[in-house]
């Protein structure tokens, strides 16, 4: 149990250490780390509006983070959450313009379903290629990201372009398909609620369903899974499609609640940031929500920080990157011992089978 608590505390420790290192850099540059931190906090959680906006910014990260977690749990390296989110947004955005007379709840459900289906097709395609043609999903999903971006660009310049042809964007979706803000002027909307719902669904699915167990087994030992008759191909396609569906849902929520129409760029790279979120959360769905909120807060606070301290918002990306690097280092230290991890001594410090055997017999 202590080991589990330590493992859970490591992401927090990584964040603190990253902040400490950045502080040193800021001092060297002549800026005050305290002021920067205060402004970052102010921008992210300073008032009701800032706090809710952090949640709004975290919402697509929760969806894409869940998408990554589901795939990675099965050792399916889905780098394509960005493309899946874009295709989901496109499917939802295209459908949304045609939902004029529909009752609001039905229109919303139709939007989300279209988004999930779009993302599922994009992720499922990579899964199918992996299962049937042994195409490495890392490569196919990265490539499909570019294809998705180009397809969206073509769509908003072509078939989905607004009639005036003034800008490369689609017409606004029907009012019935738009998610309302709970408390104007805050942009807080149903999106985060749906994200939380799917977080619970993913948790139950991964850790309490037989299919989730099979997926985790596949992710940890492919050969044993094959021996015990786990349907590897079916599971690969299914997990990749579900992963894509979650990312696509994120895209649909974004169109329905925030943008209300399609632009050339629908994602600032959420699908990639989600990999960081999922890794920090240890691929654990319940931990993805706080991780996404931290990353969303950093994104959100960076603008206030830039205004107040004349510090580039890129600093925030540096912090995010450092958290990941430090976390990896911490994990290495925990498994191989501090000295080995730092100085790289002793070829293989992992206990040999004999030593582990001794532990079992003791």
């Amino acid at each position, binding site marked *: 149990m202590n080991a589990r608590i330590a493992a859970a505390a490591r992401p927090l420790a990584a964040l603190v250490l990253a902040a400490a290192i950045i502080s040193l850099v800021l001092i060297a540059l002549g800026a005050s780390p305290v002021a920067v931190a205060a402004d970052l906090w102010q921008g992210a959680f300073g008032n009701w509006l800032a706090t809710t906006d952090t949640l709004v910014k975290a919402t697509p990260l929760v969806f894409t983070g869940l998408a990554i977690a589901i795939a990675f749990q099965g050792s399916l390296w889905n780098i394509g959450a960005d493309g899946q989110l874009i295709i989901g947004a496109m499917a939802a955005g295209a459908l949304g313009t045609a939902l004029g007379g529909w009752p609001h709840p039905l229109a919303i459900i139709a939007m989300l379903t279209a988004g999930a289906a779009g993302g599922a097709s994009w992720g499922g395609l990579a899964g199918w290629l992996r299962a049937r043609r042994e195409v490495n999903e890392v490569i196919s999903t990265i490539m499909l990201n570019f294809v998705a971006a180009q397809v969206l660009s073509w769509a908003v310049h072509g078939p989905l372009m607004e009639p005036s042809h003034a800008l490369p964007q689609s017409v606004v979706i029907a009012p019935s398909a738009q998610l309302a803000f709970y408390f104007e002027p805050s942009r807080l909307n149903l999106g985060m609620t749906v994200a939380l719902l799917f977080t619970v669904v993913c948790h139950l699915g991964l850790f309490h*369903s037989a299919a989730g167990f099979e997926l985790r087994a596949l992710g*940890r030992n492919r050969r044993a899974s094959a021996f015990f008759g786990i349907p590897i191909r079916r599971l690969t396609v299914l997990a990749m499609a579900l992963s894509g569906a979650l990312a696509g849902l994120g895209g649909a929520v974004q169109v329905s609640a925030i943008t209300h129409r399609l632009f050339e760029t629908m994602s600032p790279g959420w699908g990639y940031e989600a990999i960081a979120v999922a890794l920090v959360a240890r691929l654990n769905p319940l931990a993805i929500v706080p991780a996404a909120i931290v990353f969303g807060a950093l994104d959100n606070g960076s603008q206030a920080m830039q205004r107040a301290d004349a510090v580039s918002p890129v600093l925030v990306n540096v912090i995010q990157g450092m958290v990941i690097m430090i976390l990896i280092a911490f994990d290495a230290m925990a498994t191989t011992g501090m000295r080995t991890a730092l100085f790289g001594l002793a070829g293989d410090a992992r206990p040999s089978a004999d030593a582990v055997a*001794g*532990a079992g*017999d003791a």
Partner: protein
Amino acid sequence: MLEAAAITRRFARTLALDRVDFCARPGEIHALIGENGAGKSTLINIFAGRLKADAGVVSLDGEPLAAGSAHLALKAGIVAVYQSPMLFERLSWEENLALGGFGAGVSRNDLAAAAQCAQPLAARLGFDLPPPGTPVERCSIGERVRLEILRALSFDPRVLILDEPTGVLAPAELGAFLELLRRLRGEGRIVILVTHKLAEAMAVADRVTVLRRGRVAAERLAANTDEAELARLMIGEITVPASTSAAPLAALGDRATPALTVEQVTLDCDGRRALDRLDFTLSMGEIVGLAGVDGNGQRELVELLAGRRAPTSGRVRVRAHGGAITVIPQDRDLDGLILDMPLWENLMLARPLRDRFTRRGWLQRSGAVAFCGELLERFRIRSAGAASTAASLSGGNRQRLAVARALAGAPQVLVAHDVCRGLDLRAMADVHRMLREFAAAGGAVLLISSDLDELLALSTRLLVICRGRVLALPADDCGSERIGLLAERIGLLMSGAAS
């Protein structure tokens, strides 16, 4: 002279080695014996520089070795062959040899040269090399061990450490191999043989060091001791059950009801004929031993019976439908268990158990955990509970878990592949008892092994597999009480002499 003085090594809270002194002289074959978890692997890993001792010094001819450097150990002439081969899975066997000592003097890209260098050595040892260009991931464990022995010898070692190398060699190969060890000894090299097999240690070693629970229990000249004494030293006060001694082959089976029928099964995979017109039956209540050198189609047969492969022609019939065959794979850590999953989840890998604890797609966690606890108790598996990971179990307990899981699914037919490989006597006796009880209760067991002693001790009937063909022993041999003669006969069949 390879000397270790007061070596201590600790893993977390476990003291793996406690002030171990060890000394092997040039021109000697030194057997290192001990149960699982006694510290043998840790000690040889320290010799080979893969692990660093917490305290103590290893020296070769009076020169202290740089601790924890595999590279420097190799340069000093210490070469180890491990129980789980250390080969590059995705590379061909020639490339693996070229990356090792066979690359010396020739370009590492010149695979033909590496293969050519290996031929005479392989021929001298009587090893069959795989077809050219075969990636190691498609080689059987036996082929891998043979490759690794070749690679180790190509380094021209001063100290050759062999960790359980003989388990997967054929009797014919074994003779040549032991002969080679004697020749290496004659050249003034040091050979350290890590083994469970007391008979083997006695047959070839000059000196024996016994480890027990991280300490040296004794060092003996082979001439001054015997197997009984070594067994006592290894295990301590506990008496060895009789099951490891050779029992006469008895026809206990109820031949009238076949549980498994394999009819003219042929399997082609990876462009070669892996199985060739297999034809045999298994009856309820019998343990049928399938003897053979590893890499003669056993793995493919197991995969076929596990349902991972479909026969190219012929068919497999089981008395009952669906899930009636349960397989215990050869490589328990790679194929049988998921080491970083808890024990109860490892049980759920088995389809019958997973189905039993699944309701409408949801795993019944508490039921499964309770069931796992019962099983751990019933099969006396030492663990920190159902929630601890499989990695925390010792090798023997991992195998007890694998067998317990297979039996808990109440199969009709149990296919056990090298089920006792690397187990100590106590764990082996436990596993044998579990298999006997299963057969006594009406189950049919196909016991696949390259260990003749084990097959003779357990089997009611013996088959031999060689180059994908299964040969039954002539009926009069099965009743033979001249076990020694029989073993010789089987050994000849295994090495293909009779085919």
